[in-house]
């Protein structure tokens, strides 16, 4: 979809003219009903665009996770027994509801997270709907396999739901990441207890408002509260059959160790430090492809850099560095920062003060290490109410790959750029990292693109593109970036048990006894 350049700004949720209605207080969504937290506690939820609290959200305890699990277990037999056709119809209805409420959800997501509304309108929300539609189609096309062991013996393989799964969502794409996890889980016949991230507890409740009447009660349950309490209570619970988590590495290990204690599967997606590699031939012609490659570098600022696959290390062949980087810096200079609800805004605020402080700390580390600040590097001067928001300038640091700003995930709009001499050095730098989630390769030479793509140790290598997340493409990490995959119909297997019926049609005994 084309990006429009209108200068209009959406009214904030709850204001006259806003597509988003707003209550003062939001409860948990359990068993198809709004449910007060047993703690009786609520927490103020600020918008990062101004720092002002706009609603209260439940601050639940472990007992609320148990209530959600009760509801999910009560629903699982009926939901798991529904035919793929019936489950697909529910997923399609969810997708239809998301599409029908695209503007409302886009504004809610933008206001709570700080991401520009033109991203949520054109990417997050339509993609979320598409993931439900994709898995609705995939589950209807799913079939078991038959192995002919011999002419009298057959192994029939069936997919069965796991039951009730726990899903912990990150703050960077609250609705889209929920869709990534929910769509395959529900399609495969599971019920979910979902914990949103602490900085973004609300937009998914707006989604629940519009899909509540198309999902059977208990199939989807949403509980908000501190990760330290309810994240633990969910991930370590004996009543879940799988745990899926997106976040940082120590909690990833914790999740896997809980799963080991309960002997259940887990999926962990733990971030990256993705290289984005530009070979000299991108400058061979001043054409659409060059324009696309420049945008490809500037995509580090997409979603203010709060993306696990943020292309946060740019590797540029040294023969084109000055000219190519010059063109990119012009494009970065033109990034419009401001109110995320303004359709013209390209970069909004970071999600929380803690995240912004972390980013500032890294830029200081980069300066101390001797990195050169090519652009940005600090807080922008914002006016009026936006002065209270958590904004940080799009920043580029030039240095080398051994610097910490090249090795650690900053999770902000901070690009670390360096140069390479030849293909071998590009590959060596690309792979010199603990992580292996994403990578980008830009070249007009198809053979080189293929060689690089196969040799880079990362789960997703975008080739002459970046930041595309279609449902029909597997996503996940190598090395410390986690274990498991998301997206693609292979997820139906990750959310299923395999039942093998081994059947003999031979009337004769085996003859051992």
């Amino acid at each position, binding site marked *: 979809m084309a990006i429009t350049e209108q200068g209009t700004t959406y009214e904030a949720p709850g204001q006259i003219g806003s597509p988003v209605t707003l209550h003062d207080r939001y409860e948990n969504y359990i068993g198809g009903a709004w449910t007060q937290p047993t703690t009786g506690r609520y927490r103020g939820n600020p918008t990062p665009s101004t720092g002002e609290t706009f609603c209260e959200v439940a601050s639940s305890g472990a007992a609320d996770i148990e209530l959600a699990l009760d509801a999910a277990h009560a629903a699982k037999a009926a939901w798991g027994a529904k035919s793929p056709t019936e489950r697909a119809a529910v997923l399609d209805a969810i997708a239809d509801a998301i599409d029908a409420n695209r503007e409302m959800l886009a504004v809610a997501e933008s206001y709570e997270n700080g991401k520009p509304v033109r991203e949520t309108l054109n990417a997050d929300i339509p993609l979320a709907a598409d993931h439900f539609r994709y898995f609705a189609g995939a589950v209807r096309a799913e079939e078991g396999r038959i192995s002919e062991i011999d002419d009298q013996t057959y192994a029939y393989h069936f997919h069965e739901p796991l039951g009730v799964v726990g899903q912990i969502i990150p703050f960077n794409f609250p609705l889209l990441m929920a869709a990534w996890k929910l769509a395959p889980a529900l399609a495969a016949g599971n019920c979910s207890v979902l914990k949103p991230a602490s900085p973004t507890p609300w937009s998914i409740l707006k989604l629940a408002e519009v899909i509540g009447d198309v999902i059977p009660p208990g199939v989807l349950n949403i509980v908000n509260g501190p990760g*330290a*309490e309810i994240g633990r209570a969910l991930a370590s619970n004996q009543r879940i059959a799988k745990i899926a988590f997106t976040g*940082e590495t120590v909690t990833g290990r*914790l999740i896997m160790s809980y799963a080991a204690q309960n002997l259940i599967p887990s999926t962990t997606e733990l*971030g990256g430090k993705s290289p984005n590699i530009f070979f000299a031939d991108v400058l061979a012609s001043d054409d659409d492809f060059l324009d696309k490659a420049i945008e490809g570098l500037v995509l580090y600022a997409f979603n203010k850099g709060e993306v696990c696959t943020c292309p946060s290390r740019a590797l540029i062949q040294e023969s084109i560095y000055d000219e190519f980087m010059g063109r990119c810096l012009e494009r970065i200079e033109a990034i419009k920062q401001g109110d995320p609800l303004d359709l013209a805004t390209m970069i909004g605020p970071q999600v*929380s003060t803690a995240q912004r*402080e972390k980013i500032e700390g890294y830029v200081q580390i980069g300066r101390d290490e001797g990195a050169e600040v090519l652009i940005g590097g600090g807080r922008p001067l914002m006016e009026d109410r936006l002065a209270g928001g958590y904004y940080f300038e799009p920043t580029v640091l030039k240095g080398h790959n051994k610097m*910490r700003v090249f090795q650690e*995930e900053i999770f902000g709009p901070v690009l670390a750029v360096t140069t390479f001499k030849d293909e071998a050095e590009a590959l060596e730098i690309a792979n010199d990292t603990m992580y292996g989630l994403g990578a980008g390769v830009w070249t007009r030479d198809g053979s080189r693109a293929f060689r690089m793509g196969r040799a880079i140790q990362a789960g997703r290598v975008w080739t002459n593109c970046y930041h595309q997340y279609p449902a029909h493409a597997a996503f996940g990490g190598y090395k410390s970036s986690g274990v498991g995959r998301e997206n693609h119909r292979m997820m139906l297997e990750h959310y299923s048990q395999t039942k093998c019926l081994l059947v003999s049609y031979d009337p004769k005994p085996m003859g051992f006894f």
Partner: protein
Amino acid sequence: MTATPAALEVITRLEAAHGPLVFFQSGGCCEGTAPMCLSEGELAAGPRDRYLGSLAGQPFFIGSDQDDRWGRPTFVVDIRPGAAEGFSLEGLSEDVHFVTRTVSPSSAGR
């Protein structure tokens, strides 16, 4: 490795509430640079973890590869306003969260 007096106070409070603790330096996405405070025994240190010292008697570990890539700096644990966003135990009761600051060996003499 050290902690600021304010961080030590929080650690002492958390130990009184939850018993012995253990810290692991995190990495990766979201709250990825945070030092994670867990109950002792909740996550076993493995062969890839390096013991860096203790804070108010509570051990602190980091992945050895991560420590090497960070240049084996000196670690200082501090606190900042705002509740922890993730699993770290201070998120249960404190309205501050732990952060890690580092002093690289090359800049230590400045």
